[in-house]
């Protein structure tokens, strides 16, 4: 039987209606996420990665809005007969999202320093989540919280749990954030650059932890990063974003071995290294795209070395090349090149 994706995003567009014009932050994004999948989203800053996952979690506030598309989550949360069904999160009421977030979709954000509320204890912030979703007693929730802290590698968790965030190191805080995100066994874990703000060594530890936990909790994961190298070890699929559009989405192997989009190529040419501190991608020549009222053309066009006549006229569709490989380009890099390269 064909495995049903747990999350299926169809033609999602998220726009911000600003006074100066419309910011088209996410344009026509589609992907499927099955259980065990680890989807990596890469792209340079401003390409719409965070907006994309925030939209999925219903965290876009006005002036942002979903301009188009569906976010189908396979869940029994709202089912009356207890059977799982696809629920379109794009049409879900705001209040109902608190039953999805935290419980079915866990999220981790970039900056652990600010993700925790500074004036409540770790215990408080963990317990409120567990009690809210799992309807257990506070005592029980505390037990679970301590266990979670242990799993994410916090030493002496039964003591540290009563600490305030400012008493923990950055790495520890991110571990706590991860613990909270996982505390209700969500089917989907979204990690938005979980390690960028951390020290290089700590980064490595957190990533190691993520990998481990991913196996342990077997939740499907969406992992946003600038760092293709990080993704390479974890991800099963990679989506490359640029200017709000998905440029290419494919299995991790295809992306690294047979990348088709010129932008993916450019990215691969400048994979950052773990041993030096880098929070941004190495620069690709040219200006990043404008997001305000963009023309309906490929956003990479101004920087593209392979542009053709047609690029000036139409925006290419996201075309399916193989079963799992999609690319949005009028003049994709032929797979052959890769072969040639291998022959060398």
């Amino acid at each position, binding site marked *: 039987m064909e495995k049903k994706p747990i999350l299926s995003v169809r033609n999602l567009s998220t726009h911000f209606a600003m006074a100066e014009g419309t910011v088209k932050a996410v344009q026509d994004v589609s992907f499927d996420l099955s259980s065990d999948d680890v989807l990596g989203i890469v792209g340079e800053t401003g390409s719409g990665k965070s907006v994309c996952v925030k939209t999925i979690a219903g965290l876009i506030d006005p002036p942002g809005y979903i301009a188009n598309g569906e976010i189908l989550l396979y869940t029994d949360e709202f089912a009356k007969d207890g059977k799982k069904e696809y629920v379109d999160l794009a049409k879900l009421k705001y209040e109902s999202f608190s039953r999805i977030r935290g419980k079915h979709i866990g999220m981790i954000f970039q900056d652990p320093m600010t993700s925790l509320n500074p004036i*409540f204890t770790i215990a408080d912030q963990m317990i409120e989540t567990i009690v*809210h979703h799992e309807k257990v007693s506070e005592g029980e929730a505390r037990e679970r919280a301590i266990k979670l802290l242990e799993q994410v590698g916090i030493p002496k968790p039964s003591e540290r749990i009563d600490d305030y965030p400012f008493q923990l190191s950055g790495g520890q805080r991110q571990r706590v954030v991860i613990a909270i995100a996982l505390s209700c066994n969500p089917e989907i874990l979204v990690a938005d650059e979980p390690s960028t703000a951390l020290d290089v060594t700590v980064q490595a530890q957190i990533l190691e932890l993520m990998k481990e936990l991913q196996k342990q909790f077997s939740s499907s994961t969406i992992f946003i990063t600038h760092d293709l190298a990080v993704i390479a070890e974890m991800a099963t699929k990679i989506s490359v974003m640029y200017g709000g559009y998905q440029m290419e989405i494919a299995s991790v192997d295809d992306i690294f071995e047979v990348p088709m989009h010129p932008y993916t190529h450019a990215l691969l040419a400048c994979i950052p290294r773990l041993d030096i501190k880098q929070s941004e991608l190495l620069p690709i020549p040219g200006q990043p795209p404008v997001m305000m009222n963009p023309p309906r053309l490929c956003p990479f066009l101004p920087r593209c070395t392979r542009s053709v006549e047609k690029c000036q006229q139409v925006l290419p569709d996201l075309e399916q090349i193989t079963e799992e490989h999609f690319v949005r380009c009028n003049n994709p890099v032929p797979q052959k090149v890769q072969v040639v390269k291998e022959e060398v």
Partner: protein
Amino acid sequence: MLRYIARRLILAIPVLFGISILAFMIISLAPGDFIDNFRMNPSISREKIESLEREFGFDKPVIVQYFLWLGQVLRGNFGYSFSYHVPVFSLIWGRLGATLLLSITALIFSWGIAIPLGIYSALHQYSFSDQAFSFIAFIGISIPNFFFALLWLFMAARTGWFPIGGIISLDFHELSFFGKIGDYLWHVVGPMVTLGTAGLAGLMRQMRGQLLDQLRQDYVLFARAKGMPEKVVIYKHALRNAINPIVTFFGFALSGLLGGAVLTETVFNWPGMGRLVIDALQQQDLFLVMASLLLSSLLLIVGNLSADLLLAWVDPRIRYRFG
């Protein structure tokens, strides 16, 4: 914590000491003294003026006057008011009740309105009601107190809904206990609203700004991402953080409790300390001014301390710094 408080209070002693020297010097060296009114009285002789100077100690150098005064103060005697001929503190105590009644109710009034409105405005940023509240509050801030007070009294005189100033009714002494309380409250409404509206706008904008600021913070996003319902996100996470700076405000407000509001008190015939002290200052009723200054400084110190303690109470980061 207790040690911290004790240390702060001990540190306050030299501060009070310094304030007292400075104030004494400034008042004494300022042109004129309490006897000026006597000097301008055509029926008082030169000899009597000199004997008054001796009586009030103005014939001695200022520094001697100061230490004589300080010596008395250290023995618990704050001196007599020149114009009332009674110990200064009996005057101050007599007016403390009215001052506190007004300043505390005004505080409750302005905070009770400004905080909820500020929160509401933050949660409905740019909505019609947000802008309407700001508009009304700014009108409140821009109308001078005495003018507002006069408008109020005019309204009171026309409608009879409120008394035309004063603190108690004519039949006050015949009222029951609760009747008396009611009478006080009925009288305090006017000055309370006058004083309260003046502080309202600032506080409301402050609350609104703080909350908006906190709502933009990452931990609010994370709390939402955890699936916390909106109520918890706003009222537990964002609001508690937004309140912190406001709490400091509150401490400062405490230290201003005795500061009084001369114009409002005057227009409303409110027998508060503001008028007493302003009169004393104009007449250079030295010991009365000194005593009220010391009391206000003490309150300032206590107010600052309580602001710090309150902040420590609501903000663990501060609490841990105190050890």
